[in-house]
């Protein structure tokens, strides 16, 4: 079961991001106690699924360039802005099979230790996340791919960040960009405009308890945790638990 070390700061991140002129959907980087750190004022890793969109050009599979990386200005969420000639690099710790990172020079990162330069103290960059459906390791039954990374400063010697994970999916996520979808869970799992016993049966398949990502295993309902998140994760903490069930009961019989 995956844990969510950053979830406690998610509400702060949502509130804080709206107050600043930066991109709230990006990961904000800065310095915390002489270590490269991620500010909770931006997008927090392990707090959301990043949807990738179908592509069939010189790439085949699913891609997107969100989330990007931005820099903290001043002090935001307890993380200070960079100072001096930092050179912040994204380093691969581990990637699920078929998941790749393509940087702005169109270099492909695929192995642990592969790095790309994100920028200096005023960094702001978007790189491409890519699920390759032609990769021998691609699993068509999989709907979430995990990439694990850390941030390294090769300019001033700040300590590397703690490792963090990003979750990418090839399934539409509510609130995602394309197509625009409702941002709140509705409980209507089967999209029949009613929240009823059929949806409750799906809830049972999805419920995995607090701070545990659902692992549905009923092909007649779903085997994709993102479907559970879309329908039943009312508090947007990536789990489906009794708190969500209370919200589900409130909307049952309505829609």
């Amino acid at each position, binding site marked *: 079961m995956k844990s969510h070390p950053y979830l406690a700061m998610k509400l702060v991140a949502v509130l804080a991001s709206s107050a600043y002129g930066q991109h709230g959907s990006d990961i904000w980087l800065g310095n915390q106690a002489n270590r490269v750190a991620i500010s909770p004022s931006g997008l927090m890793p392990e707090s959301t699924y990043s949807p990738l969109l179908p*592509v069939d050009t010189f790439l085949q599979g*699913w891609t997107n360039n969100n989330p*990007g990386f931005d820099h903290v200005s001043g002090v935001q969420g307890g993380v200070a802005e960079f100072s001096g000639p930092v050179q912040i690099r994204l380093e691969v710790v581990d990637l699920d099979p078929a998941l790749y990172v*393509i940087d702005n020079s*169109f270099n492909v990162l695929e192995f642990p230790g592969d790095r790309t330069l994100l920028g200096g103290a005023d960094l702001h960059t978007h790189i*491409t996340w890519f699920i390759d459906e032609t990769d021998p390791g691609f699993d068509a039954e999989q709907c979430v791919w995990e990439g694990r990374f850390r941030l390294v400063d090769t300019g001033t010697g700040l300590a590397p960040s703690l490792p963090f994970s990003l979750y990418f999916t090839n399934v539409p996520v509510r609130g995602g960009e394309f197509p*625009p979808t409702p941002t709140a869970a509705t409980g209507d799992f089967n999209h029949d405009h009613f929240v009823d016993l059929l949806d409750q049966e799906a809830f049972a398949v999805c419920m995995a308890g607090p701070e545990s990502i659902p692992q549905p295993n009923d092909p007649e309902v779903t085997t994709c945790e993102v479907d559970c998140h879309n329908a039943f994760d009312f508090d947007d903490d990536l789990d489906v638990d009794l708190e969500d069930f209370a919200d589900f009961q409130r909307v049952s019989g309505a829609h």
Partner: protein
Amino acid sequence: MRTMNQAAIIFGCLACIGNGTVRAQFHEGDIAVGRSAAGQLKVTNVPYIPLKLLNPVSGLLNGFTDGNPGFNRINVDQPDADFFQLQAGAQIQLHLLGADPALKFWRNNLSAHLSNPGDQLPLGDHQLHYHGTWHIDSTAPGYEADQVFWEATFVLVDAGSTAYTTSEPFTARFANRANSIPTMSDWGLAALVLILLCAGTLTIRRAQRTGGIP
């Protein structure tokens, strides 16, 4: 009168130096998107987006690329500039009016690109923040290896319920060589030349007044 002339020359030289220094600071920020009070879509830096140097690439794409500038909605109204935030209901599209051959703007998932008049893509809603990939394609028909600058002209269109009117056209310009863009050292050299010319002018005038030069 002589003192004023000397001062005018000096201040004129200083003004030239100052203007040169400001123009050399090319800003790589996103293209800010908003609207006028009258409801017309607007972007900053009309009609020209600051010149952007693209980086050489080969492999998946060939030529020169970069993901900046992106498009980002403003989140603070600027009444003095008649520049206001987009409102809920907006669905902003980027429409290409025309582009130099070989210049493309790829969608953020690299699924398609804008390169021909009429091509369009959705940038997002009232909270839009969009980065595609600007690309000078060295394998495209019409690519000229000797060409230094490429341009593409766009408008923004609102397909949403806010029905903002179409923006004025704006042009994004790109270069593929660093030595095509004046750098601080270039401006510094120009400033030095100007100082020397000014100093030379002052010397000549002083010599004329003392009778040293006819």
